[in-house]
């Protein structure tokens, strides 16, 4: 059981390190996909928004980590 728990923990850890980065990325993907599928946003525009959104989330996550390190 310990080994299964360890592997499951590793599996989750593969995708989630900074929880808010993972959550924001999932929200971004959900919003862009919904806009494409439900609001007829052109899929290519959706792809560009996805790319820009990922970079914005990455910037915010690394800025927050650097800021926390400076305060520590």
């Amino acid at each position: 059981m310990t080994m299964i728990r360890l592997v499951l923990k590793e599996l989750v850890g593969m995708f989630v390190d900074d929880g808010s980065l993972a959550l924001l990325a999932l929200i971004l993907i959900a919003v862009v996909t919904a806009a494409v599928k439900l609001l007829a946003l052109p899929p290519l525009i959706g792809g560009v928004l996805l790319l820009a959104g990922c970079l914005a989330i990455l910037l915010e996550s690394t800025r927050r980590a650097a800021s926390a390190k400076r305060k520590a």
Partner: protein
Amino acid sequence: MNDLSPILSIVTASFLASFVEVVEAFTIVLAVGVTRGWRPALGGAAVALAVLAALVLAFGPLLALVPITVLQFVVGVLLILFGMRWLRKAILRSVGVIALHDEEQAFSKETAALQRQANDRRADYLAAVASFKAVLLEGVEVVFIVIAVGSAHAQTLYASLGALAAFVLVILVGFAVHRPLARVPENALKFVVGLMLTSFGVFWTGEGFGADWPGKDLALLGIFAIIAVASFAIVRWLRGAYPAAAEGVAR
């Protein structure tokens, strides 16, 4: 070129990502081998490889049942999460916010732990478990990478070859030098892998919801270039904006 570029990028991503993971697993197996002997070290590693092979054989064929657009979307989302995690860590290591992974240190730590267990009558078993755990946990990541970068374009064979090449290279070099591969520029590799996996993720998620990328597969290179430029700009900006965090920076 249009056919070759996705294959090359899949092989490269799989090779580099697997290389980093195999180096980490090799460090632990080597520590076990040097401290407790090669029988528990290789025995634990062999059992872990068998478990990984069983996982691939059990779940691999199921992927063929999933429609390609659904598969591309799901794999794309997972790759965005996985790739951005690697990229974030590599950026933070580049600016000194988190420490670099040190194979020599990991080797010493594992060796010390094994030496503390030397008088335990289960010492060989515990050593084999350490080897098993290292190979299984790093191997799970390799399996995910191979399946993820390979399955969305039905190129799992090429992705597997990339991973196999990394495995063989690390084993050959590792056993030749007989010490942890501490001089591997691990953070630079992780940076490149993070860029590649995030690019694959954005590309396939886009394809999954119907984006017709200009230039087809060549768009992958464009996405990679944009994410690379942005990531290097973030590194540069963080070094300027948070100089205290960047003390003792790794370049």
